[in-house]
């Protein structure tokens, strides 16, 4: 099942190579496992949060929000139970990293959950795993069971006066449920329709209680912060954007796969040194840097540091670190068509601009690709995308609009050529 390339130069996050896994608690303990948890549980919860803040750990789920800062949003005087939700929905096209932890190495993830739950004062954590991951759910549940058996979870975590239960909650096929408030609706047994904010989840979240939502990789990073200390964690990445990062490299590459590298590694290094360059050494045409929703970069824009701030400055996003490369000879309209179909399919239908707009975008791109585009369609696309952005409850609307705006702007001559010739010049 796993013959993908997993390179582990640093061995901090991706410590298991291809075909390897650590699914047995004793083996994990033999690697120094749970020392990080012991260290954290010996500190006051506030001090744990401060340490994570010092590590400048930015959330790995897409938005890059500083983890320790988010944890601080829980009102201290709220007497209700608190929840930690771990986002393992892994739905953004191009992303296949969280799967590594579920499948090959769940214990660092579980360590991070224990530490984070302790820091925010939660006694229950749910891991929301996309429903397709049937095997991964079984593996994860088995590892959790091992932790209960050995006293790492339950009434007294590691013999301390701290209770924690971790449960796996399966999704059932809906990309939108990766959005944090839809995820909460889904756990509550409802369709995954995002909630209006405020109130923010840290104040009114799951079951009306204060809730923190973090990504799987973020949790694994929390465990690293305590394994090595915040200072060392920062040194593994950038000053304001600490730690290592798992980059998901896919598309027209010689060695696609997961690669761990310091946060802020150059995109060209990732493509040419890590992933071995492009198939048949073809020139690059475009790179989607952070998942299919993030604005595309053209070949002359890829000499760039892959971190949250640098990509934002370049008008795009690190997102989930899911880098999709396509080479010359690829029709950009065809690529956008797949992307637009996806967001139209996954709109929850709650907000009119997204419900109608995503379908509209998808149909126009489709008609251009199939040779039925009309003069003015490019402006129509830009206009329609602009009318979705910022006008919806959640960011799915923006996720649908950003690729359209960037593809049409950066490959406009190719879109126009489809329209003028009444066919796809690539013969699609």
């Amino acid at each position: 099942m796993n013959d993908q390339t997993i390179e582990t130069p640093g061995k901090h996050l991706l410590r298991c190579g291809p075909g390897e896994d650590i699914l047995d608690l004793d083996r994990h303990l033999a690697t120094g496992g749970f020392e990080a948890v012991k260290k954290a549980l010996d500190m006051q919860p506030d001090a744990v949060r401060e340490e994570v803040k010092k590590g400048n750990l930015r959330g790995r789920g897409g938005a890059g929000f500083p983890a320790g800062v988010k944890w601080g949003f829980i009102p201290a005087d709220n007497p209700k139970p608190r929840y930690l939700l771990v986002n393992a929905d892994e739905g953004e096209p191009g992303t296949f990293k969280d799967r590594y932890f579920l499948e090959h190495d769940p214990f660092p993830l579980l360590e991070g959950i224990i530490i984070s739950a302790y820091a925010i004062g939660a006694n229950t954590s749910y891991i929301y795993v996309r429903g397709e991951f049937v095997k991964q759910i079984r593996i994860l549940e088995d590892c959790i069971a091992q932790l209960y058996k050995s006293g790492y979870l339950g009434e007294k975590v590691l013999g301390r006066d701290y209770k924690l239960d971790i449960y796996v909650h399966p999704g059932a096929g809906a990309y939108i449920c990766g959005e944090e408030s839809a995820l909460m609706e889904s756990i509550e047994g409802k369709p995954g329709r995002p909630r209006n904010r405020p109130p923010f989840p840290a104040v009114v979240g799951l079951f009306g209680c204060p809730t923190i939502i973090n990504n799987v990789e973020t949790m694994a990073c929390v465990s690293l912060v305590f394994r090595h200390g915040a200072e060392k964690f920062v040194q593994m990445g950038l000053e304001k954007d600490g730690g290592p990062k798992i980059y998901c490299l896919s598309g027209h590459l010689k060695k696609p796969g997961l690669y761990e590298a310091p946060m802020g590694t150059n995109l060209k290094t990732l493509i040419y040194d890590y992933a071995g360059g492009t198939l048949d050494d073809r020139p690059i045409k475009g790179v989607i840097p952070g998942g299919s929703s993030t604005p595309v970069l053209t070949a002359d824009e890829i000499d760039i540091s892959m971190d949250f701030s640098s990509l934002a400055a370049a008008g795009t996003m690190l997102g989930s670190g899911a880098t999709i490369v396509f080479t010359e000879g690829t029709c950009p309209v065809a690529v956008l068509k797949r992307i637009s179909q996806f967001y139209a399919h996954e709109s929850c239908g709650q907000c009119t601009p997204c419900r109608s707009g995503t379908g509209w975008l998808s149909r126009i791109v489709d008609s251009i690709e199939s040779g039925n585009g009309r003069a003015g369609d490019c402006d129509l696309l830009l206009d329609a995308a602009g009318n979705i952005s910022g006008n919806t409850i959640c960011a799915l609307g923006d996720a649908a609009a950003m690729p359209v705006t960037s593809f049409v702007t950066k490959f406009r001559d190719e879109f126009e050529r489809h329209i003028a010739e009444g066919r796809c010049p690539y013969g699609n």
Partner: protein
Amino acid sequence: MTLAFTAESEEKFKALLGRYPNRQAALIPTLVIADREFGYLSREVMEYVAERLDLPKTYVLNTATFYTLLHKQPVGRYHVQVCVNVSCYLNGADHIADHLKRKLGIGFGEITEDGLFSLEGVQCLASCGTAPAIQVNDDYHENMTPEKADQLIDSLRQAGGGQ
């Protein structure tokens, strides 16, 4: 009502109830168990789940219809799902899809006459580094080629007792 979970599913169902502060929250995991146990979520199955969780039928229906993995129609014994999203597309997913359509003699959303196979185009399976990918029931099959697809279908056909 004649439907009932097997002992194994019943045990899983009971375990679920202890995990949440209310019964609604157990709904999706229970529907996942029911979908697996009964093959798909017929009206009767959804009513059974509603009864077991003491929820209104419309509540169950409203939730079930939102999620693509909760099947409202029968699927084949082997439900073949082909990812058609970007990274798989770039690596030849359409060829795999066409190949499977020809081989099985059905299109997306259809089921073979003997009920053995159904075929569906699906969105990103999180297998972009091992594209193109397909999922058959619980199992992922990655780095697909037409040859690998042939072997897979042939072996499933044998295992499933078809010709």
